[in-house]
């Protein structure tokens, strides 16, 4: 491995460990999960047992638990929906079964790694996809179901982008999260296409914050999706090309931080 790799990892460990760790633990607890207790370190790039590695390990397990939060919610959502007779048209069940299969595979993969490293595997919370009554038709009306489905999918893409960032010090896990993030994006695009086909004027990618097509709590899934400044490069009308605000914001999905993820998910956790 290159020296710059190692230095980058150490640099990462420092900022992560000192700045955000306490905050993350707090948020994870609020989501109803027991924060992963670290019994044995993940192997990170040759840095084995020392204080730095122990802190990194903590962060890796927390990242996995963070992503599991969303994968649990997604899998339970489709499981419940597929069990309601007549909710999803027969012609579209295959697609949702495929999505559920992928989500379950994500869950199994992350759980296997928590187990292998002696970490606590969080239990699956009970979910109420009516948002405690604020979205009463979610599991009885197909259009209402699709509305929450794409919000959950888009939020999932965004949370996995955050997961990639939290796993930055570990190339293997970072790649795993990346390869799941693009699959989540495929699911999101499919669900959005289905909703478009019901007559809603929307595309398979996220335009701005999409406030127009969403109600109540699920708008929270789109906060900060309207970013038009990427690493200080302004993207609207970039280099004189006719690039609208919508196109500029659609071209990038944005990370969803832990605080926003909590705001979005909390109404659906009993």
């Amino acid at each position, binding site marked *: *491995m*290159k*020296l*710059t790799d*190692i*230095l*980058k990892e*150490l*640099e990462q460990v*420092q900022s992560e460990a000192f700045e955000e760790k306490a905050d993350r633990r707090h948020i994870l607890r609020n989501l109803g999960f027991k924060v992963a207790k670290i019994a044995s370190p993940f192997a990170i790039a*040759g*840095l084995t047992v*020392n204080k*730095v590695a122990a802190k990194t390990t903590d962060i890796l397990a927390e990242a996995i638990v963070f992503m599991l939060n969303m994968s649990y919610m997604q899998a339970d959502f489709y499981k419940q929906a597929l069990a309601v007779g007549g909710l999803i048209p027969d012609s579209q069940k295959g*697609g949702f079964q*495929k999505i559920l*299969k*992928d*989500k379950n*595979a*994500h869950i199994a*993969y992350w759980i296997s790694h928590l187990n292998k490293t002696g970490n606590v595997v969080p239990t699956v919370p009970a979910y109420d996809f009516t948002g405690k009554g604020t979205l009463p038709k979610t599991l009885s009306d197909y259009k209402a179901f699709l509305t929450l489905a794409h919000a959950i999918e888009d939020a999932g893409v965004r949370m996995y*982008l955050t997961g*990639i*960032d939290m796993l*930055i010090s570990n*190339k293997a896990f*970072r*790649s*795993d999260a*990346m*390869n*799941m*993030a*693009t*699959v*989540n*994006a*495929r*699911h*999101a*695009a*499919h669900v959005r*296409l289905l909703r478009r086909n019901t007559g809603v004027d929307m*595309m*398979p*990618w996220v335009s701005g914050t999409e406030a127009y097509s969403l109600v109540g709590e699920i708008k929270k899934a789109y906060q900060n999706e309207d970013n038009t400044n*990427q*690493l200080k*490069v302004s*993207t609207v009308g970039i*280099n004189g090309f006719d*690039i609208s605000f919508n*196109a500029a914001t*659609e*071209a*990038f*999905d*944005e*990370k969803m931080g832990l605080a926003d993820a909590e705001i979005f998910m909390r109404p659906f956790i009993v």
Partner: protein
Amino acid sequence: MKEVTTQDQKAHENASLSRRKFLNYAGAIAGAGILIASCKKEDDPKPVEEGAIDLGSNDTGLLNYAYLLQQLEAAFYIEVVKNPFSGMTDAEKGFFVAMRDHEIVHREFFKNYLGTSAIPPSIENDWSSIDFSVKKSVMAKAKFFEETVVAGMSGICKLLISEEHIQIVSKMAVVDARHSAIVNNFVYPDTFAEKTDGNGMDVQQDPQSSLDITRQFFKKSISGSNMPKY
């Protein structure tokens, strides 16, 4: 790297990294008792074929490859919109226009971000394998390009060092994955995620073998011999 620096500044930072940052972290490294012996100095750049475009090394080389991928997609969709296949519906055109615009944003982002380290813009394409007047030919290539780019961008992410580079490439890769999903669906229903493995993970490809696939669509010779490898 919170600032967008000029390439000269970046080069300077990289050059000084090994000494300055090493001293900063010397304490932490000493505790680990590691690895320095196995770290070798970055090799000198390998010479490339005469007339070939050298993507470069380190993160710059990888971002240049991402730039090349986005050039490919943007140029393809520009052509698709300019010369619509026979029978293209307004709805289909709407999707192609949107995807074209996203790819232009991606392409121009890399051009601006890489600055003087960027490969040339608008490298001429070889479209001889595509019949733009035939829907089936266009859709098949759109599917192929999107799948290739998603896998390639993920592979680039695996090798990048800088956190903000990883973030920006992953933020684009998921949008390319959205494109890939719907193009797949247009070719055959419900195939939006047809290539996931048993862990629910997408295909990822290392930049070297990705370039071996994409170079045929450019008229100039492209060298990735200095790019980081898996």
